[in-house]
Structures are given as C-alpha cells and as structure tokens.
C-alpha cells in the first residue's frame, strides 16, 4: 500500500498550517510532535483508509488528490468529496471516537502527514489552536457538502456537470494553447452519482454539451477546445460565488 514512512520536516515550516498555530509553543512540544508524526507516500489507486476502519491517525494531505467515497449496505458508492492539498482527514472520526465514515482513495500519487491518534490527542490537548485548525477544516467540508447539495437541487443537469468539471480543472487541468484538457480522476458513473443524476441523464447531458461544442468527452478525460468559452460558461452559472479559476501557471 504505502511506501515506507519517512521522518517529517519540522511542523513550524509546514506551509499548510497557519503560522499562529505554532506561536508560543515550546520547543519540546515541536520536537515531540515532529518525532511522532511521519510523512507517508501512497501510490495512485491505493487507499489511505477504508470506511469502517478504526481511526488510528489523523492526516494532512501534503500533495496529490484523494477521493472520499461513501458506501451503503446495498453496495452503492458515492464520491462525496475530492480532497486537495492542505486538507485534513480523519478528524471527525477521532473526535467522535468512531470508525471512518468514508474511504479515502488516492486519485493520484499522494503524500500525507500522518499523526497517530494518540499523538494527535496529545497535541490537541497541548495546542488548542492546532485543533481549531483541524476543526475549521471539518467545518469547511460540511459547508462544501451543503453547497453541493444545494447545487444538486437548483442547477440543471448540464450546469451541475460543468461546475464539477470546473472544480476538477483546478487540479487536473492542463492548458494546451487555447484549449484545456481535464484528466478527470473519476469515471463518468462516479460523476453521475456525485451529481445525483442517473447514468442515462449523464449520457444525454454529455451529448448535449458536445453538440454545443463546449467540451469533448474521452475515455481518459475531457477536452475543452476553447478554455475561455468553457470558463465564461461556468462563470455565468456560478455568478458571484465563483471559486478560483485555473490559470496557465496553475495548470500542469
């Protein structure tokens, strides 16, 4: 599964944790935390943890993208969220002393900071600001889900697909001149489930979007012949609540 754990760099230099988290923390605390946490690298396609696993650690995603999948007793599985660098994982389960409620699947090669549960509890007890930072990450996750549920309720199928692809473009978009290629990390079926639409509706929607010349769907991803037109269309859907757009410097 994961490669051999490596000793982590100092927490004080972690660009993802806000600097104020470490203010006034004694050197002994920093040294002990650095000693207990490790950096782990996982290959694309592997799992960081599975739904139902006991929570034995909390994580901060340092690079790569994880997909959180939730399943039910009927075998339905849904990607509830794409996790991007800087996000924290496992905190909900730690606080509730419950098993993980989702599985964390590596959509790309991934690097995480792994803090064993016992060390995390100790660190949070010593450093409330650090725990607040993890809790704030959880709060933002709840809000994203609420927003996603609202989009499912109020946007038409076409607009939901375009907004999702726009979100994916932030991390999986490659600028190719005037065009944009999005190496989507999930299947069309997963996308349909994530958007709360039937696969048949998804197929119809894909045909519609292709007929409009906005996007072309391929087995390995999605191609926008005109990046500008795609962005303008999504901007019109999102109105004022537009998240950051991928630009050429961010596109890989």
């Amino acid at each position, binding site marked *: 599964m994961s490669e051999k754990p490596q000793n982590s760099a100092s927490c004080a230099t972690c660009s993802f944790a806000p600097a104020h988290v470490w203010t006034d923390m004694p050197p002994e605390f920093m040294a002990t935390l650095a000693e207990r946490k490790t950096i782990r690298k996982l290959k694309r396609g592997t799992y960081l943890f599975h739904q139902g696993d006991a929570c034995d650690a909390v994580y901060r995603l340092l690079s790569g993208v994880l997909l959180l999948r*939730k399943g*039910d*007793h*009927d075998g*339905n599985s*849904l990607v*509830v969220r794409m996790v991007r660098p800087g996000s924290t994982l496992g*905190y*909900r389960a730690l*606080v*509730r002393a*419950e098993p993980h*409620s*989702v599985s964390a699947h590596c959509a790309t090669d991934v690097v995480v900071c792994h803090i064993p549960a016992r060390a995390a509890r100790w660190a949070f*007890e010593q450093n*409330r600001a650090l*725990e*607040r930072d993890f*809790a*704030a990450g*959880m*709060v*933002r*996750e*709840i*809000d994203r*889900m*609420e*927003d*996603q*549920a*609202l*989009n*499912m*309720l*109020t*946007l038409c199928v076409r607009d939901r697909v375009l907004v999702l692809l726009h979100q994916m473009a932030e991390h999986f978009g490659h600028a190719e001149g005037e065009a944009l290629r999005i190496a989507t990390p999930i299947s069309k079926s997963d996308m349909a*489930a*994530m*958007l*709360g639409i039937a696969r048949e509706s998804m197929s119809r929607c894909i045909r519609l979007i292709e007929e409009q010349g906005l996007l072309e769907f391929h087995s390995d991803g999605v191609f926008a012949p005109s990046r500008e037109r795609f962005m303008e269309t999504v901007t019109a*859907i*999102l*109105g004022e*609540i537009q998240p950051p757009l991928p630009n050429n410097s961010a596109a890989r």
Partner: protein
Amino acid sequence: MAAQFDEAALGDLSALSRRFLDAAQSLHARSGLPAAVWLRKGAWLYQSAAPVTAVFMILDGSVVRRKASLGGESLAVDLVCRGGVLGYRAWLGYGCHRSCAQCASDTLVCRIPTADLDDILAADRELERELLAAAAHDLSTAQQRMLHVATLSVRGRLLIVLAQLARDFTTMNDEQTLVLAPPMSRTDMAALAGMTPESLSRCIRALEAEGLAHFSRHHVVIPSQSNFRAALEDIGIAADGQADLALAG
C-alpha cells in the same frame, strides 16, 4: 425577545445542553441578564454574511437554517431542534455566518457571546470537546444526506425526512397512528428532502395513494407505524439506523 424561561419545565437536557446552559448562566449572572430567552416564531437568530457574535443552544423549539443557492434562492438546509447548536461552526471556520437561521416555532435559546466563548472553552475543555463532537456529527449527517440524494428516490428521501420529523414533532402517538406537526413549509420540507416543491407534491400524492402518510396543511398523519417502518426498511434505512428514527418499536 420574550419572557424568561422556566428551567424546571425543560425536563432532561443532554449533557452538552446542560454544560452549555451552566456556562451561559455563570456568565450572565454577572450582568443579571437571563441565560436563555424565548424567541417568537419567525424571529431571526442571525443573517448570512453577518459576523458571528454569539453561539446558540436550542433548549426548546426549532430553528430552520437556510442558504442561498447560486441563483439567489434561499433554501432550507437544516432543521435544528432541541439540543442543537448554531453559530459554533461559523465561528470556528469563518468568523461570519454562511447561512441564516430563523425560528420555525417559538424557540427557547441559550446564548454565549463569542467575546466570552474562547475563555469559557479554555476553562471548560469538556464543553469544547462536546461542541467539537457535535460539529463532527454534522459532517456525518452531511455525508449521509449526499449519499441519500444520490442513491435514493425522492419517495425514499421524503420517508426519511418524515421519520426525522417524528423525533421532535409528534403531537399524537397511539399504538398505531402518528400525527406530526412539522414546523416548516412544504417548500422547506422539499429542500430538506433534496427535491423541488413540484417533486414533493408528486411524492405526497404517491405516499397518500400507498396509504403510508396523509398530508394536511399543518399536519402529517402516519396511519400505520408498522407499514411506515416497513417502507423504511425496504429502502434499507431502518436496518442500519441511519435515519436516527424516533418511531416506536
């Protein structure tokens, strides 16, 4: 704001409610203000984008939380009942509200100003732990709701909302029949079930045709609890306890 509250009439409070109320009472004892007050149906606790000035605990009644969609429509995302906390997540995550909260019924609210909250939580880590655990529970609920919207029919989702409403809004419960008095409009009920008002109307007709529930302007009658429970089991809900049902048995 309305009259002061009678603490004895509240009955058993959850551990979190008790601890929150105790903290608010010690805080307000200095100022002589009541720790909790009754708010009339329709009163606002806060508006979207407003700075978070207080965290609220609902001791009685219910509050509907709404968010604006991309089209600017204000839609219900949550119905917070007795024991629920409001404002804490916004305080943790943003410092300003990302939703608005309005009393769906006359509501008894206990309030701790954010100016005092940090000191209170630093002194009472158990209260902080319980507030964090409540926020963590909200994440589980949001994940579960996403799964339901993606995998269940509108009928199934309405059944779940009715089962959840049964927990706090049952006005009559004999051996067989439940009578619910939901405090919100059908538009809000539709949004909570993740469907449009038009879909809700069709769904209501379907449930009535099945004899599972009958809807009037202010009430929902579930004529047979056992049939209702069986309908939930058919969609795999009661079996795994995900709906947090209040139905008897």
